[in-house]
């Protein structure tokens, strides 16, 4: 299934760019956009992964032989509708602000008795693997917010502090390249090679970008989550490895999500 899709991309890119002596970047970008639309009409490959997540959510698993049906993602036990559009948020029982992934981890550990380190280690699927349990569950939960308004709360000190720290992290320049998130995502109309870079400090671009993650990455044949997105950005920034579910990863997500408030959840999206 993966191969024909990639072939289609190559064809489209080739058809739009190669024969033109005056080939310009816009043409190739349009090719990718066309390809995206074409795939959307036929359904997103993430749909299958979402179905796996649906099964996993209801399946009795772990030493406690429990499902996740009592997992409280912020809207009450078992409620997934709209949960992602209101995350990250502060959870009193855990005493911390959590994004979807750290909250799912919390439920898998506390309700099902599963091993936290093992889940974290396997959270991101490897090359050629089918989606991880975490990716599947994320896909399932995220889909239940499709079409809903992003409305991430700033209703207590913990959530407001998380935003303030996340904002500082977004602008934090360091490392051998002197990059911050803002180096690439702080101005309008910027591109790395042919890849458009959304200006995440403007509401319109922030809403569009945040609302399209998590997303199925065609080039990787995998559903990628927000934790993956941030980890990979930091890697390209030449920073060390962002720990899964770490405080910085969640605070930065709070910043990005709150900047995107008012937008519409479209995830799981579809990316190159």
């Amino acid at each position, binding site marked *: 299934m993966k191969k024909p899709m990639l072939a289609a991309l190559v064809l489209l890119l080739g058809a739009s*760019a190669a024969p033109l002596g005056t*080939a*310009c*970047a816009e043409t*190739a970008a349009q090719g990718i956009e066309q390809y995206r639309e074409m795939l959307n009409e036929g359904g997103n490959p993430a749909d299958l992964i979402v179905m796996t997540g649906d099964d996993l959510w209801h399946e009795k698993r772990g030493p406690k032989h429990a499902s996740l049906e009592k997992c409280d993602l912020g809207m009450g036990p078992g409620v997934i509708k709209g949960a992602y559009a209101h995350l990250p948020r502060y959870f009193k*029982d*855990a*005493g*911390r602000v959590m994004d979807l992934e750290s909250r799912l981890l*919390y439920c898998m*550990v*506390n309700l099902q008795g599963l091993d936290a380190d093992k889940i974290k280690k396997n959270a991101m699927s490897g090359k050629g693997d089918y989606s991880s349990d975490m990716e599947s569950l994320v896909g399932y939960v995220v889909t239940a917010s499709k079409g809903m308004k992003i409305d991430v709360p700033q209703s207590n000190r913990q959530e407001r*502090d998380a935003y*303030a*720290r996340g*904002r*500082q*992290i*977004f*602008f*934090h*320049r*360091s*490392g*051998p*390249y*002197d*990059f*911050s998130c*803002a*180096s*690439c995502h*702080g*101005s309008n*109309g*910027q*591109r*790395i*090679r*042919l*890849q458009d870079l959304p200006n995440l400090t403007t509401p319109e671009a922030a809403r569009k970008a945040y609302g399209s993650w998590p997303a199925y990455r065609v080039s990787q044949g995998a559903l990628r989550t927000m934790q993956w997105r941030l980890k990979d950005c*930091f*890697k*390209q920034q*030449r*920073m*060390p*490895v*962002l*720990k899964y579910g*770490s*405080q*910085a*990863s969640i*605070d930065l997500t709070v910043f990005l999500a709150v900047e995107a408030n008012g937008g519409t959840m479209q995830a799981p999206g579809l990316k190159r």
Partner: protein
Amino acid sequence: MNTLRIAPLAAAMALSLLSANSVAADLVAGTTHDAVIKELKASFSEKGMAKLSRIDQSVMQRECSQAAMTGKPLSKEQADKIMAAARASVKQPADGKYLGDWKAGEKIAQSGKGWQYSDNPAKPAGGNCYACHDMSKGEISYGNIGPSLRHYGKTRGTSKEVLEYTWNKVYNSHISNACSVMPRFGAAGLLTETQLKDVMALLFDPHSPVNDDSVKVH
């Protein structure tokens, strides 16, 4: 006596925190700069050449981060100080020659390898110039964060001044723009002196794809 009584209590509390589901003890509170640095250090792990020291900031990194976040530009003194430090960081080529091999330079300009935790430090890094610059007619996959460098040498010539300015700019872009977003390819040790010369040749050699539109880059 007080401490004797408190110690077991504290130990018991610590234990209960560990065993209970609450893991909030590992969190950083507050929003100060120091809190954020502490948070970042706890949130990343070292791998390969990417050590936690990469989180620490130089004066330039810190002041430029602050300026970008607040939207308040650097004061003239701050900017002058950063640019002066940048100028002082530049080392001219040991043999006084600025230009190497443009073909090697083109490879460096195309390559985005290097300095990530997954990269092999023994292998030469790239400069990834095309990621941000339009450089040659034949390469349509270029970014636009930096200015176009098409016909760079053709339009500027190869006077000593132009060569030296360009060397300095690639070596440390902060010489003339305090908060430049371009990596400091010489000052930060990202490219070797030989590699910098090769990139210079790409910019100035009349037969390079930068200056000669008929040269194919792939």
